[in-house]
Each structure stands twice: as structure tokens, then as C-alpha cells.
């Protein structure tokens, strides 16, 4: 594969997407400081609200957080100087708010403040979360250092595909004692002693890379072959293979790991990338119909899938409210009690919601920061996704385009599935809230995703090589 891409006429100097020539690293630093200030303010707010003074360990927490983010910033300056200046500050802000919320939830009921102790949350959860932040940023830096040019990933299409499917299938193959989250029936983790990993968080990234590589190679045949029926271009039967494989894998995930949310994200990612690659609406319709039919059949065949719909439709009947719908109901009550402006960090009662620190964490923000804060968080996610899609549009090579578009869409879909789930827009399926949920795998996976987007935005925004004027009319182009 050639490492040189001839400039296509569509992206000449007149293209409005290209003219950026400034690195904007200073903007990134200013925004990062702004994000840090918000996090510091939130942290202080929790302390004052719960105990009337600054948290005793505030300097340590914020110091560690600042150092980690500074390292990330310096790494970007060194390894991706042309990258988008908002990706890192937005992720840092979400990550910081997640640490603050973990700290706040871990404090409830301690040292004279009213409230339950959240028995499922260890008293060192916030410190652990800061540690995971450091690991996440280390992975972010590693992505920037190891992948200097996004297209190199294209060489490992099938390797990443195999890794992704293996990671996805691993928990289902292992005994429940290792892979099941106690009490939930969801087999999605690997437990090694007291340490747990959720491999799906990394599988999603590997599969996104694999899909991008596969679709770049096959997109012409997928886009053009087929016939038109009722105004819709139907693909050829032989080209249906890959989508059927992914569909089957996502249904197996649904059935054997009881993980509806990830299954939806996984299917959505593939269908969206298929659409970006081919611009063919029929793929979109086909994927959507296949998922809905599969999920519907599964809901009839498997109780654990069907009951999610019941919880969604009738959450307040007495048997539901005290049973399956107890957790989602408490989350809704929390958001309702927050109202427009919220109870203030530390002022609400998010501890009434079981496992509020993981899947339900958005409701804790809704309760304590109110509608205003919840909308702000959604807008931060929206901005992050928008920066990713912007990168996809401006990057030149099709592989990066697909990968950036797919990853951005996956992030959006994940936010939609979990936030929509806890706010009863759609049936609740437990997946993590990117950067906000307490837990390491999701955070590390999230930072790797940001790393990939940062790398691709650097490629997209890097100015074209300058002509060397002394050579007269002959222009020498530096090749990488």
C-alpha cells in the first residue's frame, strides 16, 4: 500500500475545510485550564456542601489530575501538534467531573452528613478513579506515540477483527464465576482477584478499526453492486455475508452475555460505518430492521431481554416499582428532585439509587446539577462528537474518515443508549456512561478513543508541505 496519497481535486486549496494552519495548542491549554477550574470548583463545592469546608484531600486529587492532564497536553504538543484543540479539554472535563462525582458518592453518609453509605462503592473509589485516569491518559499518549499515521492500522484489519471478536466472546466462554457481574446475570467482565476488566470496552475500538479497514477495501462493491427494488438499492446476496456475521455476533452477545446495550452499540457502529462507506440508505434500513427484528425475537425468547421492555413500559406499577424497576425508578425520582437547577453537588440523595456510580451516574448529575447541569453535560458530549465528526469530514484518506466517523458515532450512540435509558427515552440497558461512570475499563477505552481521534485530527489539520521557493518552478514534495 502506498504511503503517498495524491491530492484529490475535491480537497484543493479552495476547500473551506482545509485552510487551518495554526496548531492551536495554546487554545487547548487555555481550555484545559478552564476545564480544570470547573473540576476544582465542583470538588470544592462537594466539600463545602457535605462538611462545610474544603475536602481534606483536595490538593492531592487536583494535583494528580492536573499533572496527568498536563502530561496529556505536552504529549499532544510533541506528537500531534496540529490536532483538534477541543478533544483533550472536553474529555478532561468529563473525566474530572466523573472523579468528583465518585468522590461525592463515596462520601455520602460519612462524617456526619446524612445519607446511606453506598455499600457497592469502596471507600477508595475516588483514588482508584484518579489512578484509572492516569492509566487512561497513559494509553492516550501511547496511541499518539505508537500510531504516527492512522493508516498503518489498516494493515492489521483482520488482526484487529479477530482481537475484537475474541475480546467480545471471552466473557461468554468463561465460567460465570469469572465473568458475571454478581447479581445481574450480565457476563461481561474478567475477574482476576479483586481486579476486573470489561473487555468489551476495548473490543469496540478493535472492531471499529477492523470495520474501517474492511469497508475501505470493499466499499466499492458494497456501494455499487445490486439492484433497485421499490426505489431502494438492494445489495447482492453474496455481499450480505459480513453484515450477517456482525448481526449474529451482536445477537449472541445479547443472549449469552445478557448485554443488550453493548449489542446495540456494536450493531449501530457497524451499520453507521457501512453507510458512511457506501452512502447507501439500504444498508442503514437493513441493519436497523435486522437489529429490531433480532431484539424483538430475543425479547420473546429470553426473559432477561423481554423484561427490559416491561420495565420501560410500566415502571411505576407496584410490583415493578418494588422489583425490577426499582433502580431505574429511583434514578428518575432523583432527576425529578433535582428539577431545573439541581440540589447542588453533595446536596441531593443520589445514594437512594442502587449502583448509582456506574450505569446510573447521569441521574446523579441530573439530581445534583439539575436540568441545567444535565444539559451542559449532554452538550459537552455533543461537542466531543461534533469534533470527531468534523475530523472525519476534513481528514483525507478514506480509512481515517471511516474510523473517525465510526468512533464519533459510537460515542454518540453510547451516550444516547445510556442517557436515553436512564431518562426513560428508550428501554434501559446497562452500559457505562463514557468518562463519567466509576470504573477503569470504560475510562481507559474512552481515552484510547480520544487518542485515535486526536491522531486523526492531527493528520487532517496538518498543513500541506511547503514548496521550496529556491528551486524555481520545480516543487519538491516531502514524502513520509
Amino acid at each position: 500500500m502506498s504511503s503517498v496519497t495524491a491530492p484529490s481535486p475535491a480537497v484543493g486549496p479552495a476547500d473551506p475545510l482545509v485552510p487551518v494552519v495554526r496548531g492551536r495548542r495554546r487554545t487547548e491549554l487555555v481550555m484545559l485550564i478552564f476545564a480544570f477550574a470547573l473540576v476544582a470548583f465542583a470538588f470544592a463545592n462537594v466539600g463545602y456542601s457535605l462538611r462545610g469546608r474544603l475536602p481534606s484531600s483536595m490538593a492531592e486529587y487536583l494535583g494528580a489530575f492536573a499533572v496527568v492532564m498536563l502530561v496529556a497536553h505536552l504529549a499532544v504538543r510533541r506528537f500531534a501538534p496540529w490536532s483538534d484543540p477541543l478533544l483533550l479539554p472536553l474529555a478532561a472535563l468529563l473525566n474530572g467531573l466523573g472523579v468528583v462525582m465518585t468522590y461525592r458518592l463515596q462520601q455520602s453518609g460519612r462524617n456526619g452528613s446524612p445519607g446511606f453509605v453506598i455499600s457497592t462503592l469502596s471507600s477508595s473509589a475516588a483514588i482508584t478513579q484518579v489512578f484509572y485516569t492516569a492509566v487512561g491518559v497513559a494509553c492516550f499518549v501511547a496511541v499518539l506515540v505508537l500510531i504516527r499515521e492512522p493508516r498503518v492500522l489498516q494493515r492489521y484489519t483482520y488482526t484487529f477483527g479477530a482481537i475484537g471478536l475474541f475480546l467480545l466472546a471471552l466473557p461468554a466462554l468463561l465460567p460465570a464465576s469469572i465473568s458475571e457481574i454478581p447479581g445481574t446475570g450480565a457476563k461481561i467482565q474478567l475477574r482476576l482477584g479483586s481486579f476486573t476488566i470489561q473487555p468489551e470496552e476495548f473490543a469496540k475500538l478493535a472492531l471499529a478499526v477492523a470495520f474501517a479497514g474492511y469497508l475501505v477495501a470493499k466499499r466499492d462493491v458494497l456501494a455499487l453492486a445490486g439492484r433497485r427494488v421499490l426505489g431502494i438499492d438492494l445489495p447482492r446476496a453474496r455481499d450480505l455475508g459480513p453484515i450477517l456475521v456482525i448481526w449474529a455476533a451482536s445477537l449472541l452477545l445479547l443472549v449469552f452475555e445478557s448485554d443488550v446495550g453493548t449489542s446495540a452499540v456494536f450493531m449501530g457502529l457497524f451499520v453507521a460505518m457501512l453507510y458512511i462507506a457506501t452512502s447507501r440508505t439500504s444498508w442503514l434500513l437493513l441493519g436497523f430492521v435486522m437489529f429490531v427484528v433480532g431484539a424483538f425475537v430475543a425479547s420473546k425468547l429470553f426473559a432477561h431481554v423481554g423484561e427490559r421492555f416491561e420495565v420501560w413500559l410500566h415502571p411505576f406499577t407496584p410490583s415493578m416499582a418494588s422489583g425490577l424497576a426499582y433502580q431505574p425508578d429511583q434514578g428518575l425520582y432523583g432527576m425529578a428532585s433535582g428539577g431545573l437547577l439541581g440540589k447542588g453537588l453533595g446536596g441531593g440523595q443520589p445514594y437512594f439509587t442502587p449502583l448509582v456510580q456506574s450505569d446510573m451516574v447521569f441521574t446523579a448529575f441530573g439530581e445534583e446539577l439539575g436540568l441545567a447541569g444535565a444539559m451542559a453535560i449532554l452538550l459537552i458530549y455533543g461537542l466531543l462528537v461534533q469534533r470527531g465528526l468534523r475530523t472525519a469530514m476534513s481528514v483525507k484518506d478514506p480509512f481515517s474518515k471511516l474510523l473517525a466517523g465510526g468512533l464519533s458515532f459510537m460515542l454518540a450512540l453510547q451516550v444516547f443508549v445510556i442517557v436515553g435509558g436512564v431518562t426513560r427515552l428508550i428501554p434501559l440497558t446497562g452500559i457505562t456512561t463514557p468518562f463519567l461512570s466509576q470504573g477503569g475499563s470504560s475510562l481507559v477505552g474512552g481515552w484510547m478513543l480520544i487518542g485515535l481521534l486526536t491522531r486523526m485530527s492531527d493528520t487532517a489539520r496538518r498543513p500541506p508541505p511547503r514548496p521550496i521557493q529556491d528551486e524555481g518552478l520545480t516543487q519538491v514534495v516531502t514524502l513520509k
Partner: protein
Amino acid sequence: MNRALRRISIAVLVMFVLLLVNINYLQGFDTASLANEPGNSRAFYAEQNSYERGSIVTSDGVTIAASRPSAGNGDSIKYQRYYPHGAVYAPVTGYDTLYSQTGVEAAENSLLSGNDAALDVRKAIDLITGKTTKGANVEVTINSAAQTAAYDALASLGKPGGVVALNPKTGAILAMASYPSYDPNVLATHNGKQLNDNDQALLKDPAQPLLNRALQATYPPGSTFKIVTSSALLTQNPSTTINTSVYSPTQLTLPQTTHVLTNDQGEACGNGSGQVPLIDAFAQSCDTTFGKIGMNLGAQALAAMAGKFGMNDPNLAVPLPVAKSDYIIPPSEALTAFSAIGQFSDTVTPLQEAMFAAAIANGGALMRPYLVQQVTASDLSTVQTTSPQLLSQAVSPSVAADVGQMMRAVVQNPNGTAFAFNAANEGGLVIAGKTGTAQSGVYQTDDAVFTSFAPYGNPSIAVGVIIQGGGYGAAAAAPIAVQVIKAYLANLGKQ
């Protein structure tokens, strides 16, 4: 590909708009209906803590539960509940935790917390005049002297038991003590972890400190049930008087068994002739006499009389719920003899013991026992008040007078079981009572029971005492009753 990416961007935009619209609905418009869902613990919690909770005071003005500003400024609940006398009044006040209440705290919760509909008009006025709304204050019928004497006497004995004192004329509960008790202050903490630890410690304590023995524990009444048997006899046979000679063998052979009923230590009743006046058999508490009377009357007659004294009523509430005192119809005549002397399956609460004496003291009219005298709003206007009510006319005034005379003999006659507490020993105070020493079958030592009223001529207090494993009623239970009576009468004299 950019065209597809733009469309994907639009799809993403739609997704985020849907999320934003949905949370606007949820947090902007749907809050009231979600707050009213019955399972919403946040709403319950907010309502519970919206106003300063009212106080609970005794009839003689002693504050036994109150609220004060919370100490920690990081505390989101403004007021801290406290109980100045802790364990002494715990069976009365109950506790008010972050999440639940018991006792008067539970029974009058809506008024104490300020959320009762009866307070709506006053709250509206507070809103207009700018006054801070507070919960209503509850005045209980408890007399602090009687209550303190009851608890101190139980505590110094150190055995589990309950004491209830009633005003026989009204049914007002003057004392309601239980031992072992607990300090409700440890459950009033706003620290969730501490609350949980303290609650678990109390729940796991084998001494069961949270059990209100005065109302919630039942024990066999033993010989105090002879009040019921005598009442049934005197009511059914109007020709019988307290001086009528009754069959009083040293040993009573029971029908269809080889079992022989004897008196306490196998001693003779009276002079051993087998015939003694009813009053002497009552004062000496002859089991053979009353076993025989019971068999003659039949279980149905005993059950009817027990019911008139308030037994077999599962719905009695003061307004705290009261455990049912049982008289179960025995399956045989022999067991009827046992049931007539307060054994077999008879069980009563200390409250029921006090009700026996109270009915006799009040001319046979049993007043409905009650604990809450009145509720006043924070502006001191009366929200509700309890007026005395007749629960049942247990016996006619003449039968009550007869039984009362016999109860006087228990304490005042030299051969009475409680002669140790006669008028000469108690500074001229004439107390009437009945002892009971019950084999509960569950505990090693017998339960000690005593029911009494005083002063005999014009009764103003009736006291029931049950001491689990206390031994003889006269030895363990009667001294406690006498202390409560004397403390109450002394306090009454002062007022």
C-alpha cells in the same frame, strides 16, 4: 463519503435533541407526578424534614422529645431530634430516624412533622404573616413522676418487664415503662452509617431493648385472672356475696384426668375445712377454689367476661398498637380449671393487667386507654384533643364494689398475699390489688404479676406490673406498683 457523514451528523444531532427534549420534560414538567409516586423515598424524606418537628411533652409539662438546630453545618437536615430522658420514655416516644418512626413519633407523625391536612390553614396563615411553620406539639397523658418511678423500679430490679399505670376514671395512661429499654438518641443520628450500626446493635441484642413490653409483650396473668373469674361468678349468681362459703379443697381432682390441682405449695385453703368465704379464698389466692368455680361457670362464661375486660381484642390501639391479650376456650373441663386461674393459654399485656384493676376501680366501667391527650399547633391553638370514652361496662357497680373489696383484702387482710403493703406499712395509703405468680412454661422462674388501684376509697390510679421470671407477684411485682402509686399520688398532691 462526506455526504454520508453529514447525514450521520444529522442523525447524531437528532439523538442529542431527543435526549435534551426528554430531560427537559423529565426535570421541567414531570417532576410533580414523579414526586407523588408512592415509592419515591426522596419525596418522603423531603416532606419529613421540611419543618421543625414538634415536641412531645408529658401532661405535667416535661419535654420528652424535641428538635434543635443540627450541630454540623454540613448537615442538610436543619433539625436534630433529641430525647432528654432517653430510655425512660422510649416506649412512649419511640424514635424518629432518617427513614422511619415508632411510638408516638410514628402515631402522630403527620402532625409532628407539620404535614397533616389539619395544619393546612395554619400553614397558610404562617405563609402570609411570614412566620416559620413548625410541626404541631403532642401532649401525652404520661405523668413524669409515675413514669420515672416505674422505670427506676424496673431498672433497679434488673429483670425484663413492663409497667402500665392508668387513670381509672378516664383511661389516660399515666405511665408506660419497659425494661430493658434503649436510648432513642442513638437512632436520631443523621449519620447513615452510624444509624445503621446502632440499629443493628439494638436489633441483635438478645435482651430485646426495642420491644415495648408494656404494650407489645404478653405473659400469663396467673392468679390476677381470678378477678375475671370472680366477676363472672358474682355476675352470673347475684345471690352470691363475697362472704358466701365456697368449695375450697386442699386438692381438687380434675375430671377425666389423674391430675390433681393443688394450691401454691400444696397448703390448705383457709382453715382446711374445704369450705371458706369467697373473700378469704380470693385474698389467699386459692387455686382449688377458683379452678372449681371456673369449671362450674364454664369456659364460655369466662371468655365473655374476659372480653368485657378488654381481652381478645386484636384492634386495641392507644393509638400505639397493643398486642392482643388472649383467653382461648380450653378443649376440656380440666383445662378450663387452669384457665380460670390464669394458666393454660391465657396471656395478657401489662396494659391489660392495669385495665383489670381500672375497671374494678371505676365501678365496673372500663375506659378506653389512651396516650395522646392533645395536639397543639405551634401557635398554641388546639388541633385535636382526646376525650375519655367508655370501652365497655365490664361488670355492674355492685359487682365491681364486691371485687374491689376482695382486692382490698389481698393487701389489707393478714392472710392476703400482699399484706406486706397494707395501709399501716404504706403510711395509711389503702391499696387494693391482686397478685399473680404464673408458670409461663417458657422461662425457668415464674413470672411475677400484680394489678392494683389506689387510694381504695377514691381511686385515681390503677397499675399493672409484669416481671418476666420475677418469681412471686407479691415479692417482685407488687413493690414496683406501690412505688408508682406513691410517686403519682405525691405528685398529684403537689399540683
